[in-house]
């Protein structure tokens, strides 16, 4: 059974994953409380995306448990399609459905997965599109949008499922610099609205201004985690300090 702890929405315990006997994640444990935002940082190829994909079982972990709101995600008895409805995922390259308009992209989850009547789903979808400032693009196809617009549409698509938890896999990495801001604004609004989020990103401005905790992952293990100011000002590990100063140099401190 899941250890009972108040307000914990996501609990990850002793998660491990290898590809071809090469360990990618080693004994990862952390928890996320309702309404919290955690940012996962770390060098590339260090297992951040794999970790995120384990959380909604797009990748199956080798061992360890994941609990979402009292339900074990990792249990083979769990209906994974059901669980995924409450875990939204935003991808680096958006992955909007290419053959559908923006409105249909946002509507397809509610109608096809949740079986919500079309009229109601349309209202819901338009509501979500207005939250990301894209109502005027409802009839456009993904290929007609800028990267920033596509990413905002994909956030709306995720929101339309009314998820308990949202996962962001480097949501701004594929964007031109001038388009990053509009996506970060949407994400910040989500934080303010009380959404629980786990974000893989190197946007330090975003991390410092809104997240509750930064998790620094390297070579498949959590090196250090803590509130952003603590990690920036008083890192316990040499590697954390090195990585943060490198990242800050690269991305700048205050953008976003």
């Amino acid at each position, binding site marked *: 059974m899941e250890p009972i702890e108040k307000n914990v929405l996501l609990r990850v315990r002793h998660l491990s994953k290898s590809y071809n006997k090469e360990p990618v994640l080693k004994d990862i444990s952390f928890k996320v409380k309702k309404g919290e935002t955690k940012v996962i940082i770390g060098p590339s190829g260090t297992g951040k995306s794999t970790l995120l994909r384990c959380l909604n079982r797009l990748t199956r972990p080798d061992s360890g448990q994941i609990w979402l709101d009292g339900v074990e995600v990792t249990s083979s008895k769990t209906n994974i399609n059901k669980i995924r*409805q409450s875990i939204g995922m935003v991808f680096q390259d958006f992955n909007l459905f290419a053959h559908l308009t923006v409105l249909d992209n946002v509507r397809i989850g509610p109608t*096809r*997965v949740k079986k919500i009547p079309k009229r109601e789903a349309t209202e819901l979808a338009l509501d979500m599109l207005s939250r990301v400032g894209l109502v005027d693009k409802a009839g456009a*196809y993904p290929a*007609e949008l800028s990267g920033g617009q596509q990413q905002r549409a994909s956030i709306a698509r995720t929101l339309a499922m009314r998820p308990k938890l949202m996962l962001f896999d480097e949501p701004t990495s594929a964007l031109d610099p001038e388009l990053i801001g509009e996506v970060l604004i949407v994400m910040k609004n989500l934080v303010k609205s009380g959404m629980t989020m786990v974000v893989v990103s190197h946007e330090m401005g975003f991390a410092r201004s809104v997240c509750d905790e930064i998790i620094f992952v390297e070579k498949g293990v959590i090196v250090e985690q803590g509130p952003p100011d603590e990690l920036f000002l008083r890192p316990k590990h040499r590697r954390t300090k090195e990585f943060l100063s490198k990242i800050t140099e690269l991305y700048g401190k205050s953008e976003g």
Partner: protein
Amino acid sequence: MNFLTLDWKTIFPQLLKGTLTTLQLTAIAISLGFVVGILLTLGWLYGNKPIRIFCRGYVDLFRGTPLLLQLFIVYYGLPRYGIRFSPFVAAILGLGLNSAAYQAEYFRGAIQSISQGQMLAARSLGMSEFKAIIHIILPQALRIVIPAWSNELIYTLKYSSVAYMIGTTELMFAGKIIAAKNFRFFEVFLVVAFIYLIVVLIISHFLRMIEKRAKIPGLQMIS
């Protein structure tokens, strides 16, 4: 060469009847091939191991042996086991099952050209694999496949002429009969060729229209 001395009053209805049979044969065979082809592709890409092996084996077998031989096996071979078909039905089965193998290859190519992210995104919304295939993968694959599939339709129309070898009374058969009766092979076969050409041109035009209609705005499609 003199076209005018032929008895067109009797020839024309015969050619028309043959043409209609050819069109029917092609339409039913290509539809059969479409359904079987999609199933083969899905089995190949998403099935378990025995299903995958079966689907690959099917495609290899039908692409690796001559169409005429397949027709002969269906029409002349199967009756030994008590399975008898009329020439028309045998031709549909032979052409359709053969076309299925080629169509499966085209569908597979189209599906594999779709970004993996489409499936990931669909699954992350809570769609089952089946739903994702129906709502996300196939609608895109079918658009991508139109140019290749157009070729397959035209091939099938022309290859349907080999059905005359098992006695299906299609256009080629009609031409052969008329030519032999009048002993005017050159003229009659030229007319038959002309009919095939016209039908192919009409179909090509029609398919290009469909291709344009199905185009996704803003998206560059590689074809």
